């Protein structure tokens, strides 16, 4: 298929692997974090780790939006879905994420809550138009990739005068999270395989601060396997030469400034929160987005009096350590036993982009 097969060509892959083998220095350990779940998934699906030299260690980062949402926010979504007269619209991945006591949106649905799986927030708007007597709550999650559609939906709702459309906003910011990981010194990272879709929106310049502050090279990489291999090669060259810079491997989609239209749309309706809690990373200042006061009519957190929950992760669940790159999925006692994709105990096992699910599904 055009624009897909070219980036999965096995002959090119072999060449890239040969180049990587020829470039690595045996005395260096290359600890590379792929921030995004999309990369984690590609690495496992194409079994790339097996093909790389032993001294390249890929550390799976927290870039899986489903995985980083803390349990209390899931509980709040379940609470919203359970309110009288509410239709909660959600991307499919969120439905099975366990909240407190292993409750989930899919369980709420089986109890009678009206939870709808949508592929696009545009569908939630349509549902709002077709059900004027109901309150439609869109469970907005994700990094900068999914933020523009949410912003657009808010603008559309206002334009259409859709008073029954509300957004439960959980959008989070990538560069801030990267800085938070580096700030702790817990995990040693020599370079980042940088986000692809996120970077289309925010542009490669958006990582300049984190790269400079922490002196780490970043290669913005596409999600296809050849993109990942080429980006690893670039990182190795940068590390060998002790160069700290940002390379844009995904130049077919990412520009330095990003999608400025999308950025303007976001700036119109959303603003940075003082603080947002991340699963695994804890509370990070200025890491999440909320709806601006001018659009508060569409803000589920304003419209509903949503209770605060302070539920915790399942005790033995190592999601927090895995999301910080401190542990491998298979080092968790629950992995593959109590925690499987059918019965996930932690969020990393739910989404196909989660490190645990990818490892469970694909690793021999």
């Amino acid at each position, binding site marked *: *298929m055009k624009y*897909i097969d070219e980036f*999965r060509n*096995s002959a090119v*892959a*072999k060449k890239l692997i040969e180049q990587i083998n020829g470039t690595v220095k045996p005395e260096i350990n290359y600890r590379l974090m792929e921030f995004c779940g999309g990369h984690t998934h590609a690495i*496992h*699906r*194409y*079994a*790339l780790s*097996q*093909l790389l030299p032993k001294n390249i260690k890929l550390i799976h980062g927290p870039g899986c939006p489903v995985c980083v949402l803390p349990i209390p926010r899931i509980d709040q979504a379940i609470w919203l879905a359970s309110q009288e007269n509410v239709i909660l619209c959600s991307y499919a991945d969120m439905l*099975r994420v366990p909240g407190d006591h292993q409750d989930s949106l899919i369980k709420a649905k089986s109890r009678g809550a009206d939870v709808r799986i*949508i*592929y696009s927030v545009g*569908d939630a708007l349509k549902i709002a138009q077709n059900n004027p007597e109901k309150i439609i709550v869109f469970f907005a999650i994700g990094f900068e990739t999914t933020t523009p559609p949410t912003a657009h939906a808010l603008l559309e709702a206002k334009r259409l005068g859709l008073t029954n459309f509300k957004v439960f906003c959980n959008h989070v910011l990538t560069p801030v999270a990267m800085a938070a990981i580096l700030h702790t010194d817990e995990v040693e990272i020599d370079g980042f395989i940088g986000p692809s879709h996120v970077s289309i929106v925010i542009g490669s310049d958006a990582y300049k601060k984190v790269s400079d502050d922490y002196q780490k090279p970043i290669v913005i990489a596409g999600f296809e*396997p050849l993109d990942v291999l080429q980006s690893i090669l670039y990182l190795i060259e940068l590390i060998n030469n002790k160069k700290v810079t940002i390379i844009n491997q995904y130049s077919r989609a990412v520009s330095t400034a990003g999608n400025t239209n999308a950025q303007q749309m976001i700036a119109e309706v959303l603003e940075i929160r003082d603080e947002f809690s991340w699963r695994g990373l804890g509370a990070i200042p200025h890491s999440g987005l909320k709806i601006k006061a001018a659009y508060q009519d569409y803000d589920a957190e304003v419209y509903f009096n949503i209770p605060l929950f302070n539920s915790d992760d399942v005790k033995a669940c190592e999601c927090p350590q895995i999301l910080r790159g401190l542990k491998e999925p298979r080092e968790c006692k629950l992995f593959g036993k109590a925690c*499987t*994709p*059918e019965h996930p105990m932690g969020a990393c096992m739910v989404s*196909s982009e989660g490190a645990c699910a990818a490892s*469970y*599904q*694909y*690793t*021999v």
Partner: protein
Amino acid sequence: MKLNFKENIDLTIGAGGRAMYQLLNQLILKEFDNEFLAQQSDQAILPEIKGRLAFSTDSYVVSPLFFNGGDIGSIAINGTVNDLAVSGAKPLYISVGFIIEEGFPLSDLRTVVQSMAKAAREANVLIVTGDTKVVEKGKGDGLFINTSGVGVINDAIKIVANFKVGDKIIINGSIADHGMAIMSRRQGLDFASDIASDCAALNGLIAEVVALNPAIRCMRDPTRGGLSATINEWASFYKLGIDLKEDQILVHENVKGICELLGLDPLHVANEGKVLIMCAAEDAERIVAKMREHPLGKEASIIAEVQSISESYVTMTTAFGGIRRVDWLSGEQLPRIC
């Protein structure tokens, strides 16, 4: 009184009175026409059958009812025919149970019944007994169909689960067509596509393969859960280690495109006209050659090999030469696919 096909099904049709009689006579008996059904009893009395019997049942709840390449009627016949055929049986007789929601258009029912009649003719089976129930509006979703079937297994046919390392697994063509044909017609997913379901009766193709008298270990049609589900079932039930070859598994371009868009793995997506045959290594090539002569087997290929007969696992050699695990589908990627 003649049935007016512009009307909808109402509760009187399901009540067993005159309206039901009209429906039976003017639509169902007429379309499914055969001597056993014509007896109009509560049962079909069938001639003596010599040989072992294969017996199967399946309920069909596919949504939407009509899609490119088929409808609930053709699936309901072909699905049961295939379930019988993969045992090596020659499918003979089918029963049909309709559960219809009040308000369902009679013209749609006619389309479905005609499609079933056509599928039965093509698969060379007779629909010999049936039942129709109507449920109140809101208690069903248009139309559900159950079919059961009986087939006979020729004594000469030997399918023996006598596995050996090196055994091959063959498929008669591309994967994931049916699931993506359904997905692309789902409400809320407004994209146009030309993907057609692969829905087809496989008994003709399988009969030709079986006639070669090869050493077949097992056969199965990989429907819900896709290729990965059947291979995983075999691996865990028979304790086999199976390795799939990614570059031998055919996924059509249009199917691949929508799978990419929706983030689905074609390995997990349903098929309705595919058969997997595990056979002795030395018989694999001639089975593939035979299949390729048949319209439903033109793209047949060997897609996997048995690597272990003591340890249960499923892996895939990727196009890059890496080896990854192939897991079952988890969760409910595509509900009501058949």
